[in-house]
């Protein structure tokens, strides 16, 4: 996509905001380049979102920072590859803002998260219930305020969270099914509250936050290496994606250019992560509909790739391979040659499996028409990654806001519009093929040279913002440094944070036993959401 269009969209947005009578200041040069920063008065916060919505900007996330007397708040918007950050500041003692939720569905939970973590009140928020907070801290305490101790204020066992007000249904034949937080498999914890009539799901409410580990708080005070390690554990299955986003944000803050070879190696790690996770989810989805053949075949291919990771890069999941300034592991030329061969082999296996799967009517029976997310809902939510792309949303950071090395590669983005489990299966399959192509061109054009730049301490207050395309979709990261090379603020946004609400909608009208396959077809990360 032509990058000019993104800038045009940005200028048009500025004009519309001015037309709406919103005084604003474009911060120039942007401290978070290539993203643009627009400063607004807090009173105009909600109106700006309404203008953005009318102009079809996608809402991607919101974060706050405790700056002493003021809380600063930034919301991220994106259109045609152009990122705009709306910036405002409110009084720390009485922080109140209009909500973006009326314009953007995706803002609902992140705003509640800010309410819990900072005490920031969104005055016209339609659902002021707590979100991140269960019972580990009190309702007047806000862990991301600087005066809140990292160790917390409570000792002794944490009580269970018993009084969260789930939506209730009344009347004959409606019943509730509570599921979780401990689920019946090797999966992450979360709670699902179903309202069902007979077999049919009438309503689903998610309650997440069980694996909240205080990642944003414990990031404060770390050095760049320490932050990269932590970012690599925001969501273990996306370790490459999150580490890359965090390192890119830190490198932008410190104005460090990474060597071309390092960028290509990062992309090789990222595409391998994509291939491995896609294989695993294709396997798991077959398993969820009782098709053991698919489960074991895709699982077998995944294990081969994990072993190669171990052999060539020293870690099966590629944890800690991305470090500030570059990468920690080089790719030997023999390994590169071997990788070329395994790509060919995997493609051949996939061809064979595709023919078998395609002809399997039992698979088709369960996948087709199950868990439909309409293109309208996906667009309203700003659904990301394969969830969005199965419902007509084609955004891909690698193509639309390209970063090295994708800026010199052709990234094919498969899109479908059916929006059902089947679409999400086949989009994954096509993305897998596209990732193999990318890997091949990365290997062919692998630049020679260093694999890491020397780290240079950034000035105090330096900040950076980055977006990368993880296998689940767009991963965002914001970093601000304090003095002495220490982190003052880290905000990661996993694509799951955006996509989780889609599951509540797409499961409606399906039968309860189809929930596992619907859930797996979205495959949100609990850890990446809960932080």
């Amino acid at each position, binding site marked *: 996509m032509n990058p000019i269009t993104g800038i045009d969209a940005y200028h048009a947005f500025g004009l519309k905001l001015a037309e709406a009578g919103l005084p604003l200041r474009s911060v120039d040069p942007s401290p978070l380049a290539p993203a643009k920063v627009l400063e607004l008065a807090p009173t105009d916060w909600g109106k700006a979102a309404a203008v953005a919505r009318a102009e079809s900007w996608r809402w991607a996330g919101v974060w706050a920072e405790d700056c002493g007397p003021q809380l600063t708040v930034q919301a991220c918007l994106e259109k045609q590859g152009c990122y705009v950050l709306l910036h405002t500041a409110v009084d720390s003692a009485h922080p109140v803002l209009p909500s973006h939720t009326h314009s953007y569905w995706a803002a609902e939970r992140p705003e509640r998260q800010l309410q819990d973590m900072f005490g920031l009140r969104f005055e016209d928020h339609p659902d002021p219930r707590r979100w991140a907070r269960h019972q580990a801290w009190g309702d007047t305490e806000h862990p991301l305020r600087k005066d809140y101790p990292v160790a917390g204020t409570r000792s002794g066992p944490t009580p269970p969270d018993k009084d969260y007000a789930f939506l209730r249904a009344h009347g004959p034949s409606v019943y509730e099914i509570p599921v979780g*937080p401990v689920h019946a498999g090797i999966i*992450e914890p979360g709670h699902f509250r179903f309202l069902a009539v007979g077999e049919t799901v009438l309503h689903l409410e998610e309650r997440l936050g*069980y*694996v909240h580990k205080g990642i944003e708080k414990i990031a404060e005070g770390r050095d760049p290496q320490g932050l990269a390690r932590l970012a690599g554990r925001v969501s*273990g299955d996306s370790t490459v994606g999150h580490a890359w986003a965090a390192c890119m944000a830190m490198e932008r803050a410190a104005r460090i250019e990474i060597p071309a070879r390092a960028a290509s190696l990062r992309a090789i790690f990222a595409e391998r992560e994509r291939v491995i996770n896609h294989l695993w989810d294709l396997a798991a989805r077959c398993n969820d509909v009782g098709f053991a*053949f698919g489960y074991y075949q895709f699982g077998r291919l995944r294990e081969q790739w994990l072993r190669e990771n171990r052999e060539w890069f020293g870690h099966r999941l590629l944890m800690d391979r991305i470090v500030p300034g570059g990468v920690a592991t080089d790719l030997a030329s023999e390994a590169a040659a071997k990788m070329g061969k395994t790509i060919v082999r995997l493609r051949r296996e996939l061809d064979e499996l595709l023919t*078998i799967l395609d002809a399997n009517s039992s698979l088709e029976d369960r996948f087709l028409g199950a868990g439909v997310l309409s293109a309208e809902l996906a667009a309203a939510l700003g659904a990301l990654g394969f969830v969005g792309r199965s419902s007509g949303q084609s955004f891909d950071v690698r193509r639309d806001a390209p970063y090295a090395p994708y800026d010199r590669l052709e990234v094919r983005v498969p899109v479908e519009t059916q929006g059902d489990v089947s679409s999400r299966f086949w989009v994954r399959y096509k993305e897998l093929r596209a990732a193999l192509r990318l890997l091949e061109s990365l290997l062919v054009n692998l630049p020679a040279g260093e694999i890491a730049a020397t780290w240079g301490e950034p000035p105090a207050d330096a900040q950076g913002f980055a977006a990368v395309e993880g296998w689940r979709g767009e991963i965002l990261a914001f970093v601000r440094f304090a003095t002495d090379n220490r982190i003052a603020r880290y905000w990661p946004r996993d694509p799951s944070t955006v996509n989780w609400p889609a599951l509540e909608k797409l499961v409606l009208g399906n039968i309860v036993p189809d929930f596992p396959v619907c859930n797996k077809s979205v495959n949100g990360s609990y*850890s990446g959401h809960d932080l």
Partner: protein
Amino acid sequence: MLRLYGKIFKTGVITEKVRKPGRQGAEPDEFVQTGEQLRQIVDRRFRGSLAIRQVDAGSCNGCELEIHAINNAYYDVERFGVHFVASPRHADILMVTGPVSRHMEEALRRTWEATPEPKWVIAVGDCGACGGEFGVSYASCGAVSNVIPVDLAIPGCPPTPLALLQGLLTLCGRL
């Protein structure tokens, strides 16, 4: 359908067998030998069936990926009599990944209470073993042993399938 069977036959049995040392890389052999030793104990002490309930008490999900892997066709841990169950009431062993988030603290305790005696707890991964990258904070209780009694910790970030199996063997060898 014929293609499906064709693929199955062509793939053959890939589950790693006991081979003479020195052929085809060390890890698979080691895995199988560890597994064989484990099976003897499982046969003797658990009548051939050792049931594990996995509990994610706050993990980043990296450990879950490797615990899943020991069930894939290469490792196939079930052949040693080890299987994962859906309820703590069916379990001999709880395999807990951490750090234990404070929001999962009570759920973990109740899962442990729901597991019938005799029971054992394995803390999996660096985080489960000692708090790892997350440590103890307002949101995290750190190591699993800070919440429920732990019989064995398997370190690693995440531990490899081999390390997981060796951990199981170490624990069962003590019983």
